């Protein structure tokens, strides 16, 4: 369903020549951007292209260095978000700006325009929130702390918060980044409904499929500059992708044809049970086998046990019951150090939090991967010694194309993609027998992603058993030899990637078989046409 294509009489919000620099980085440069009533205007761009900066400027949160803003044709200066709210502009932030310990109602209240009153009239606020939620067909337990809600409910609170002051222009900065496909579908539905009410909507996203699915117009930013603005109807996903990346993207290589010996899996979980902090079973009698030379991808809606699975696989936690085996040996009570010593490699989801250490040099970060060994002799890179193993470091920098190729630079100065390459270099240089990865390309742009995939495939070809979880369904289909779907702490689908399509997976991810929920399947076929077709064609 596409919204009104006819040109409306005026622009709700019109930005001309917006520029904003942060030190040497020019985040926005002479950007023109506008929103009309009753349209969804998508904004695309690589990481760091300046999308969030533009949104923050439109919301009065960041002052532009240059440029002019008009609201309904009137020139305005937005000194703070309160000004923006007063002009009917609302922003759903890229990173949740919710206070986890406050209730739903309190969070919504926090986002409302300043009140001169002292007393917080809880009843009044709750009534307002309830009404707003109902108009979108949602219902909430208003007294619950937001931190206890699942991610998609938090997203809704975020939206309610922005809708409370009745804005005319709604800016959504990557609202779908943390959502799984079914939730994305329902969110897009909300956007359509808001559009139908005549609101002007800006949608920032990395997912081209979403743009094709709901947007009326699309603007592409690159390096802070506007590359193009055009109606969605006349553009293909491929063209969009190329516009964003600024070049041609190679198609992924076909899945490997090699035969895999599954008789003695490297990693094996048998009936593993693991409880989460809130008491319920995060992993519920889960079985998993990963053999040498295969890549197993695990798809699933966030919060279905992926985190706990990663922890159990890497020895960060131990199963409550059931059995964990590495090369056939029972390793239930091994910790991470023991698992690593036995040859396990791991790539965590938050590379800056628990992957690399920003304030250490590249050399030191590489040494980190060898710490688990008991003695100095186990390590080839020893920054604490005089001969630190420089030649090995140089070798790795070259092999993994880490830029800049300087062993002494602090890892925090590397770009996200290079940080991830460093992490992979660290883990794969040990020639692990198994690699466990969580969202290995999260937040990376297309080129970096391709490079990471290539390194993982090479490891597989060397005989490494690879298992990874990802929230991106297309990544799972693209990279895996075998696809599993995790739901409610169990593996409910286990099939070769060539036997699956997006619809099967999408249904499984919400715990339903395909025939039970034709509408969901349908919406996903529509949502991800290219990937869907590619795979259904192969089955």
């Amino acid at each position, binding site marked *: 369903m596409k919204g009104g294509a006819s040109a409306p009489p005026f622009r709700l919000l019109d930005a001309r020549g917006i520029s904003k620099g942060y030190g040497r980085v020019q985040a926005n440069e002479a950007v023109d951007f506008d929103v009309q009533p009753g349209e969804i205007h998508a904004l695309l761009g690589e990481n760091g292209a300046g999308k969030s900066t533009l949104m923050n400027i439109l919301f009065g949160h*960041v002052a532009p260095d240059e440029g002019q803003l008009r609201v309904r044709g009137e020139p305005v200066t937005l000194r703070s978000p309160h000004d923006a709210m007063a002009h009917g502009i609302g922003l759903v932030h890229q990173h949740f*700006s919710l*206070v*986890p310990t406050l209730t739903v109602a309190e969070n919504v209240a926090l986002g409302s325009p*300043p009140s001169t009153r002292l007393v917080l009239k809880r009843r009044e606020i709750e009534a307002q929130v309830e009404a707003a939620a109902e108009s979108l067909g949602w219902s909430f337990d208003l007294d619950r702390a937001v931190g206890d809600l699942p991610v998609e409910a938090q997203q809704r609170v975020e939206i309610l918060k922005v809708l409370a002051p009745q804005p005319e222009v709604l800016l959504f900065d990557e609202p779908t980044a943390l959502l799984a496909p079914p939730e994305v579908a329902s969110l897009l539905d909300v956007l359509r409904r808001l559009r139908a009410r005549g609101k002007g909507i800006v949608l920032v996203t990395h997912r081209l499929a979403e743009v094709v699915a709901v947007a009326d117009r699309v603007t592409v930013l690159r390096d802070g500059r506007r590359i193009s603005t055009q109606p969605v109807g006349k553009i293909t996903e491929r063209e969009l992708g190329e516009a964003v990346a600024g070049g041609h993207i190679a198609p992924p290589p076909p899945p490997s044809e090699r035969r895999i010996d599954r008789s003695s899996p490297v990693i094996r979980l048998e009936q593993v049970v693991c409880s989460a902090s809130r008491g319920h079973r995060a992993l519920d009698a889960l079985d998993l086998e990963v053999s040498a030379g295969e890549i197993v991808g695990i798809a699933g809606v966030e919060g279905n046990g992926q985190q706990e699975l990663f922890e159990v696989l890497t020895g960060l936690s131990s199963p409550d019951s059931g059995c964990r085996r590495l090369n056939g040996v029972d390793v239930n009570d091994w910790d991470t150090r023991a698992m690593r010593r036995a040859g396990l490699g791991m790539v965590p989801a938050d590379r800056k939090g628990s992957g690399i250490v920003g304030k250490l040099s590249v050399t030191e970060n590489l040494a980190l991967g060898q710490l688990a060994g008991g003695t100095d002799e186990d390590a080839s890179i020893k920054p604490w010694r005089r001969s630190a193993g420089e030649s090995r470091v140089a070798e790795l920098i070259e092999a993994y194309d880490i830029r800049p190729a300087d062993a002494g630079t602090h890892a925090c100065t590397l770009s996200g993609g290079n940080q991830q390459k460093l992490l992979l270099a660290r883990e794969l240089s040990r020639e692990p027998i198994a690699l466990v990865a969580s969202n290995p390309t999260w937040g990376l742009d297309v080129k970096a992603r391709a490079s990471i995939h290539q390194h993982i495939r090479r490891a597989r070809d060397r005989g490494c058993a690879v298992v990874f979880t990802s929230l991106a369904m297309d990544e799972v289909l693209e990279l895996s030899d075998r696809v599993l779907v995790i739901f409610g702490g169990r593996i409910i689908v286990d099939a070769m990637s060539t036997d699956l399509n997006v619809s099967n997976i999408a249904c499984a991810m919400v715990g339903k078989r395909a025939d039970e929920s034709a509408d969901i399947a349908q919406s996903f076929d529509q949502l991800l046409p290219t990937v869907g077709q590619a795979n259904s064609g192969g089955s």
Partner: protein
Amino acid sequence: MSEAAFIALVVVGVQLMVPLLLASLGELISERAGVLNIGIEGCMALGAFFAAVAVTSTDSLIAGLALGLAVGVLTGIVLAWLYVGLGLNQIITGLMFTILALGVTAALFERYTQSAKGTLAPRLPIPLLSDIPWIGEMFFDHSILVYGAVALVPVCAWFLKGTWWGLRTTSAGENPSALDSAGYSVRLYRSIAVVIGSTLAALGGAVLVLATSGRFVSGMTAGRGFIALGVVVVARWYPGRALLVCLLIGITQALQFQVAAIDALESVPVDVWVALPYLAAVLAVVIGRRARYPSATTIPWIGQKG
């Protein structure tokens, strides 16, 4: 233990509770906004000293409270500037501030403090309530300072839960970027919380002086500010619970003076009593390990990133 001894235990416990309660409330508000103020021991000492200065020159309870309060506000502004304005490391700044304030009061004490005066805060039995047997004597026959401090508990609770200020202050401590992106100044709300917190702590110091003849004695705060840090964790950042915890600590300390009335306690070394509140705080932190500081505590706000 006799009835009279029990009543005395609670009465003394309630009185010992008061300065600690005020300091704890101050710390609590400041931590709710994301500022760990280890300087409250210093605030207490300054509040006590200046309350004594006021009292010795005017002989008035009001003057003592007023000067203690004013000094608390000033101290709070300085601390807010250091913690929030400049974004300095809160723990180190707080510790150094305490060393500084204790040194200043000790140096000034030798020079300025004069002789003490008579009772400043006489007992004020509450009509009717104080006639209730046991309870009346234990809780409703105290000085105005005790009632005042206890009355501040619901005020603080309401401030935090029932007002827009409280909502924003809590946000400043839990997720300052949420407050910032809603268009409010994180620095402002944190600063106000630090000022309120320091003022309450200074009042705690003033009460210490006003409840004992209006004389300042160097070292009279005796680590209460540090105990307050533990109280806040044990109370999980709720004013009502802070009241309970402080009362419990007060009564435990009062127990020390009842050893004569309880045979079983006679053989306990005095040092155990002295160490008890601190050990209790350690234990509470261990048992309540899930006691979670407001997420942004000790992290200075340096503006929105990205």
